[in-house]
């Protein structure tokens, strides 16, 4: 039986443009621009210099603290190490590699002799060295999630909801590479020591569910597919846990608090490839779609491929394209330049040329309550909006603004066209600033007291 969470919205899924198109391999790009920040945490430090020769899979960025390493995705010569625009906004230190089209594989890439004999420690180490992150967009380092969850987690959930409109990369992977997904699940089951792994898939991908089930039966894998109702944001980590287990992650907590760990389908494939072939994350499937794209496609390309090459491969952009989005239409980042490149977390690249974003000259709340009904975190967006407008930090805390995950469901459904998500980003910053100010004031008062006492 299909399961779901409470709340959410039903946007037109727009997946028909690409869900029957097989994943295409992009012609090798002349140059790749690999940003040093492709994960949640501090950016990596480049460990190559201009003029260095690099090979596919060679580590070029080393992380410190929370993070994941970054690898060369093509072989060739480092043309520059300099800040370049990237998809999360602003510029970031990037390694630019001129492709020599030799496709040499680095000596660092070594396939384990017998993947099934690896110990848990060795498996986690492989995931870590392969630079696997949450490739649905959150980009949390996967090895941290695994090593932090071992012992606490009894339910391993694979996120195949793919609830954002337009995106079909995961769906295609289910159809074309089910053995990678199911194989990756088996390694996760081993790492966590669980008897089964659950893959949650929305029911608008019935053939994907069938494909996975066939593969599971063939491999006799400890994996089950859980059909989910098609509803945004079904693929939100907390919503997925709620749908699958019926339990809710406590406020401010992680899924491990209720014994869950959630991994993206893409990340699972990456784990499988890393364990079986030793190849780190150097390629990414990107759905290029939207009304501005001449011929929408699913394309697999080296990480760091300039997005212009992806557009060219899709017949280019239509005249009048006014918005580029890295990621899905609900949570993706709008870009101010097309001068960015593909990163580990970029599941889709959208170009809009029509009136996708309907705006109002006078956004007005009519108190219809649709936002309250839609909010998957059970907040009351209309009141939060009011308090953000009036900069009332105490009320923002009372109404739990920090629970907001900026999924955009409320703003999507709002008939008054309020800029809800946008104002909650500002409101959360207000709350953080206020907390920092209070902390500083308290410390200053404490220091003054101590001074007095001394």
């Amino acid at each position, binding site marked *: 039986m299909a399961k779901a969470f409470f709340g959410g919205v039903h946007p037109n899924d727009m997946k028909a443009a690409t869900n029957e198109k097989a994943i295409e391999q992009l012609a090798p790009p002349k140059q790749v621009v690999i940003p040093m920040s492709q994960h949640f945490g501090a950016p990596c430090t480049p460990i190559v210099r201009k003029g260095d020769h690099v090979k596919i899979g060679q580590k070029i960025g080393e992380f410190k603290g929370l993070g994941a390493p970054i690898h060369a995705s093509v072989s060739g010569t480092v043309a520059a190490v300099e800040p370049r625009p990237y998809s999360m906004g602003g510029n970031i230190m990037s390694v630019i590699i001129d492709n020599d089209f030799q496709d040499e594989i680095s000596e660092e890439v070594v396939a384990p002799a017998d993947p099934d004999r690896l110990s848990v420690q060795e498996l986690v180490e492989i995931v870590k060295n392969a630079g696997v992150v949450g490739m649905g967009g959150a980009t949390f380092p996967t090895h941290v999630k695994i090593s932090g969850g071992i012992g606490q987690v009894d339910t391993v959930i694979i996120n195949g909801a793919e609830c954002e409109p337009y995106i079909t990369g995961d769906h295609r992977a289910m159809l074309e590479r089910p053995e990678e997904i199911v194989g990756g699940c088996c390694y996760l089951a081993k790492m966590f020591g669980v008897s089964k792994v659950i893959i949650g898939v929305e029911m608008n991908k019935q053939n994907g569910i069938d494909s996975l089930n066939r593969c599971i039966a063939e491999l006799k894998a400890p994996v089950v597919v859980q059909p989910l109702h098609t509803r945004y944001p079904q693929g939100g980590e907390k919503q997925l846990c709620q749908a699958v287990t019926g339990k809710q992650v406590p406020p401010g907590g992680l899924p491990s608090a209720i014994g869950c760990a959630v991994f993206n389908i893409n990340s699972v494939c990456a784990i499988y490839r890393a364990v079986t072939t030793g190849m780190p994350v150097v390629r990414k499937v990107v759905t290029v779609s939207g009304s501005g794209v001449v011929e929408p496609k699913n394309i697999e390309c080296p990480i760091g491929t300039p997005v*212009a090459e992806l*557009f060219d491969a899709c017949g280019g952009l239509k005249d009048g394209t006014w*918005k580029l989005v890295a990621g899905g239409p609900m949570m*993706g980042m709008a870009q101010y*330049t097309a001068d960015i490149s593909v990163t580990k977390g970029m599941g889709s690249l959208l170009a809009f040329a029509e009136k996708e974003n309907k705006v109002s000259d006078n956004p*007005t709340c009519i108190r219809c309550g649709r936002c309250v009904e839609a909010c998957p975190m059970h907040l009351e967006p209309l009141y939060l909006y009011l308090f953000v407008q009036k900069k009332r930090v105490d009320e923002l805390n009372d109404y739990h603004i920090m629970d907001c995950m900026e999924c955009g469901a409320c*703003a999507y459904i709002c*008939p*008054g066209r309020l800029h809800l998500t946008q104002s909650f*980003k500002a409101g959360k910053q207000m709350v953080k600033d206020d907390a920092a100010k209070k902390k500083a004031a308290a410390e200053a008062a404490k220091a003054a007291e101590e001074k007095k006492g001394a």
Partner: protein
Amino acid sequence: MTGDYKALKLIASSNPHIRSNEDTRSLMLDVIIALCPALAWSIYRFGFRALIAAAVSVGAAICWEWLYRKLLNKPQMFGDLSAAVTGLLLAMVCPVTLPYWMLIVGNFFAIVVVKQLYGGLGKNFMNPALAGRAALVACYASQMTSWIDPASGWAPLSLRGADVVTAATPMAQIGENFAGLTEAYTAADLFLGNTGGSAGEVSALMLLLGGAYLIFRKVISWHIPAAYIGSVALLSLLFPGGNPAVQYMLYSVFGGGLMLGAFFMATDYVTSPVTKKGQIIFGVGCGLLTVFIRKFGSFPEGVCYSILLMNCTVWIIDRAVKPTRFGVDKSKKEAAKK
């Protein structure tokens, strides 16, 4: 365009990048469409004056809003159709015979005093159309309570319904002389709308059609109408004012303005709670007050005032009934309190 994308003029705005097709205007348009069956019935029953009155009222509402915002140099928003809905609803809750200028006065109170002075769309705390009606009842009591008897003659072309014999509404009779009422009208008469009453309230059937359309289109949810009508039905069944109780209940539900109030007035977004639980409390409150006013009040009908009174409690209902925070187990929270 291929190759060079530097010339793109891009807009970088916050997520989400897509929006639902539904906006305030489309919702209001749906309300107007849903009122059409009742309006058609009122034209059929009371004559073309009903249509003209509705047009005058809608026009007056839009003009008042335009004028107020013009004078105060605010952006014009009549395109959202909310003023048109208020005007139409006000015409529906007044007798067909009401002089046009009184409708214009009523709209002044509804639009300017109740809606715009409190900040315009979304800020008023009372339903503007009902508040306009309440003001008219206070000012022009006799005109607001003289009803033409549709049974006295089918007059689809009559522009001056005032010549027709006046009659009491079912609600005026139900308290004093239930037996007489049952002789004059069958329950089917009330359901179809063959009785005297305000222009838009007489036909329960037409209003149910409109209400079903609104629920089907997801413009409103079933919570408020179900709680409202359900509590009125239950209370009049438990405390009937005449025999048999079931018949009294049917007359209470189909007579008077309950259908119009439950589907079109109490469900007004601005003046009803935002949570489903709150909406049920609100609906039950409206039902209780309606029965109280009908039974014990000096007015024969209580729908208008009960909704207005409940409108005033919405802020406290919204504060009291909040959604349970995600990830917080309610039973555990209460256990922790003890």
